[in-house]
């Protein structure tokens, strides 16, 4: 793509066609979208996001949650929490949406090569991490052990359940799942995601950790990782703030001196550690 085209793509939505809308949980849906233009426009790095535009309604930043090896379409897992996301998940196959992007920094897949990849996800935080998991599984011999620790509110709210089971069967892979509130029929772990650490067999000297979830969860998890011996330098978080333009001009997503849209959303923990406990930053 030319530089001029990349610039334009960043500012003005490009039409995409919704191919599939699948319901994951009572309020979360996965949309598959294909772009009418070149396939190369669908290239993205795990951890990046797009701005999805609903004609006349508004735009929202949504992490790309699909397989980076698949150039035919873009996949998004969306939680319906407001007017715009509700409109988004109400789309039917065949309808158009506008796409801008991809934007932002991605997970440190290159730095992760040859190392144990520890992925800790909370709730919908598993969505931006799924492309990283695909990346590891698609190039299995480039990476060490894969450990996925995933926590959700309740069994009903677990994402990608079939894939979780499939991933667990992969060689050199450990998948541990927990829910805050169990129920009859749930025979797995009950407790917050940090309770999974004791069962995760980590090799902290060679680990690289990627975390995404509610900010409180990420603070508890980084502490726990530290206690397990994973260094600050090996830990990465995906942060969230109000994003509107995604190109660093509207100013809304500032987090201290960082623009989440262009300096993030993935940050090395060392970079934002001093900001995490600042109230109302």
């Amino acid at each position, binding site marked *: 793509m030319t530089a001029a085209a990349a610039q334009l793509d960043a500012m003005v939505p490009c039409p995409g066609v919704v191919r599939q809308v699948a319901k994951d949980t009572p309020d979360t849906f996965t949309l598959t979208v294909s772009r009418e233009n070149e396939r190369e426009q669908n290239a993205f790095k795990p951890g990046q996001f797009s701005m999805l535009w609903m004609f006349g309604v508004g735009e929202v930043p949504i992490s790309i949650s699909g397989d980076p090896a698949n150039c035919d379409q873009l996949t998004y897992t969306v939680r319906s929490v407001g007017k715009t996301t509700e409109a988004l998940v109400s789309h039917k196959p065949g309808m158009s949406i506008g796409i801008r992007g991809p934007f932002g920094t991605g997970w440190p897949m290159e730095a992760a090569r040859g190392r144990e990849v520890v992925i800790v996800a909370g709730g919908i935080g598993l969505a931006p991490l799924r492309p990283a998991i695909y990346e590891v599984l698609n190039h299995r011999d480039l990476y060490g052990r894969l450990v996925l620790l995933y926590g959700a509110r309740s069994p009903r709210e677990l994402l990608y359940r079939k894939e979780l089971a499939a991933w667990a069967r992969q060689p050199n892979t450990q998948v541990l799942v927990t829910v*805050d509130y169990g129920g009859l029929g749930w025979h797995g772990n009950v407790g*917050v995601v940090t309770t999974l650490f004791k069962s995760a067999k980590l090799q902290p000297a060679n680990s690289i950790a990627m975390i995404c979830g509610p900010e409180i969860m990420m603070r508890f998890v980084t502490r726990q990782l530290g206690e397990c011996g994973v260094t600050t330098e090996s830990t990465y978080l995906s942060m969230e703030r109000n994003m509107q333009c995604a190109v660093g001009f509207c100013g809304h997503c500032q987090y201290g001196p960082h623009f989440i849209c262009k300096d993030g959303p993935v940050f090395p923990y060392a970079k934002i550690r001093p900001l995490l406990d600042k109230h109302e930053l």
Partner: protein
Amino acid sequence: METLERIIQEHPFFAGLGDEFMDLVSGCASNVRFAKDAYIFREGQAANTFYLVREGNVSLEIYAPQRKPIVVATVGVGEVLGWSWLLPPYEWKFNAHATANTRAIALDGKCLREKCEKNHDLGYEFLKRFAQIVVNRLEATRFQLLDVYSAQK
């Protein structure tokens, strides 16, 4: 076949406990098994045992009228089940429900309490370890209370 003493010694809970105490402790230990769905103890019963889980899984449940029992936590392999035996009123606050075939080392709480009263050094070792478990549980529970995954409106 492993002796009970060696199994206890290797359990993470007892890491660092000196040999002189190991004898005192193993005297109160025995092997136990629970079939899937058995209740290991129930709320309100006298609490005189604690368990080192070696295999299986246990759910801590609370019963509320008009509702199915609520699982508040799970205890798995390598973890300790039960601390109500250590301090008065020595009564269980939750139900412990084995959700899989479960094997554990049961330690006679009454017997251990007496030994701790006679030997305060042993008592201190136990309290230190249990304090850590309780603290971890408390932090995790507070985190759980935050209900961080709920969609706030």
